[in-house]
């Protein structure tokens, strides 16, 4: 990383350093911070963009997907070159931020974040334990796994979600058994997601970007709200963090704030009060996920399975149709029973099967062309 001189710092961050709660000391805090951004799609690109420009020193960006044309309507860090090059989103974000602010570091992790690896990513990376986790996720399962991790290890978590014209944002400043985290000392701890919502909705109950679509500005509003809450936390300004759940419908012109503090005070939360981390323990885990906004299913192989040899597989698949290969992944068009599928394989063994929303069909296509 480039060493930051005082002059550089003053120039680049001058406008935000003018604010009394930032100043030189606040800017130094941001530059020393490490934030984990989970998901680098519509929400994540805005968050990474804003926080990198603001000088958050290290951004660990986890995303399992690659850039597609339908992303460009709202995913602000990507362009047509990324689509043509099949660039993984986390890597595309790293490359773009390197041109925007070379003084901060983006650490791209091209992988699925799940209950088996999230604690390693949040606590044991070379970059050290992260100071905050920020939500750029497109599904409920990952959010509840993040919520468990945040509460278990006392890490602030900024939740955000957007679909259609509605969005929601909320800062979890977790209660811990010792009660010694700075936000607890400041009397600003908040209920966790499970205190308020108890459980993720059953699959298929809620609209997704796939079924309902999403407007770019809605995502932008939510993710910028997340970004400012994250900045307050990283600056240690817990008294300014919004303790309410913010809900917005940009088409109905409604903006609501729900007072949720009582949910912890009188509730019997499985996660915060009983410290039973069911999502992190894998009680609800799935090995397949239908991807938001796409006619596609992600398959995750059992842990311990060896990494894929993409070059070898590419050679084999050439007989079945067009194959594209880059250092991160392979993409092939295959047909099975007269149906066309796009098969994308990552080095870590994950696969995305496009052309179906049914996990069983996706597994069958994978088994046929890659092996089970």
């Amino acid at each position, binding site marked *: 990383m480039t060493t930051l001189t005082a002059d550089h710092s003053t120039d680049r961050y001058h406008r935000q350093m003018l604010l009394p709660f930032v100043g030189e000391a606040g800017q130094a805090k941001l530059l020393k911070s490490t934030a984990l951004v989970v998901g680098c799609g519509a929400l994540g690109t805005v968050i990474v963009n804003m926080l990198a420009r603001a000088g958050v020193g290290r951004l660990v960006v986890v995303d399992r997907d690659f850039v597609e044309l339908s992303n460009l309507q709202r995913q602000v860090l990507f362009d047509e070159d990324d689509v043509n090059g099949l660039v993984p989103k986390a890597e595309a974000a790293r490359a773009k931020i390197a041109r925007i602010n070379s003084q901060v570091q983006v650490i791209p992790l091209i992988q699925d974040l799940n209950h088996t690896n999230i604690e390693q990513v949040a606590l044991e990376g070379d970059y050290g334990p992260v100071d905050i986790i920020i939500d750029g996720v497109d599904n409920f399962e990952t959010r509840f796994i993040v919520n468990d991790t945040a509460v278990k290890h006392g890490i602030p978590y900024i939740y955000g979600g*957007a679909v259609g014209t509605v969005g929601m944002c909320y800062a979890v400043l977790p209660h811990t058994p010792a009660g010694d985290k700075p936000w607890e000392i400041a009397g600003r701890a908040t209920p966790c997601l499970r205190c308020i919502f108890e459980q993720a909705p059953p699959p298929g109950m809620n609209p997704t970007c796939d079924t309902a679509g999403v407007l770019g500005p809605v995502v932008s509003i939510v*993710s910028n709200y997340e970004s400012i809450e994250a900045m307050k936390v990283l600056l240690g300004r817990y008294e300014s963090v919004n303790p309410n759940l913010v809900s917005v419908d940009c088409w109905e012109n409604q903006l609501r704030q729900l007072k949720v503090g009582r949910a912890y005070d009188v509730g019997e939360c499985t996660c915060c009060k009983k410290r039973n981390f069911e999502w992190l323990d894998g009680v609800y885990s799935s090995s397949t996920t239908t991807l938001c906004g796409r006619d596609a299913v992600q398959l995750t192989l059992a842990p311990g399975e060896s990494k894929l040899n993409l070059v070898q597989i590419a050679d084999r698949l050439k007989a079945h149709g067009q194959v594209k290969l880059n250092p991160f992944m392979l993409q092939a068009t295959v047909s099975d029973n007269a149906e066309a599928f796009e098969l994308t394989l990552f080095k870590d063994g994950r696969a995305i099967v496009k052309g179906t929303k049914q996990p069983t069909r996706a597994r069958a296509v994978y088994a046929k062309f890659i092996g089970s």
Partner: protein
Amino acid sequence: MLINGKESEFADVRTVADLLKALELEKGAVAVELNREVVPRADHLRTTLHEGDQLEVVTLVGGG
């Protein structure tokens, strides 16, 4: 009752749990605020509603 800023009337809705059922949200991840205070899930069955109550009902948003 005022629900999400709109005057609404339901037959046979006595509690918060009844209301969520009437809205077909009983299985959802929903937060309910009654007169500016959140009603924890465990209290939905025993929290009764009265004329003039103001409610906010929001569903956890999943996309992103």
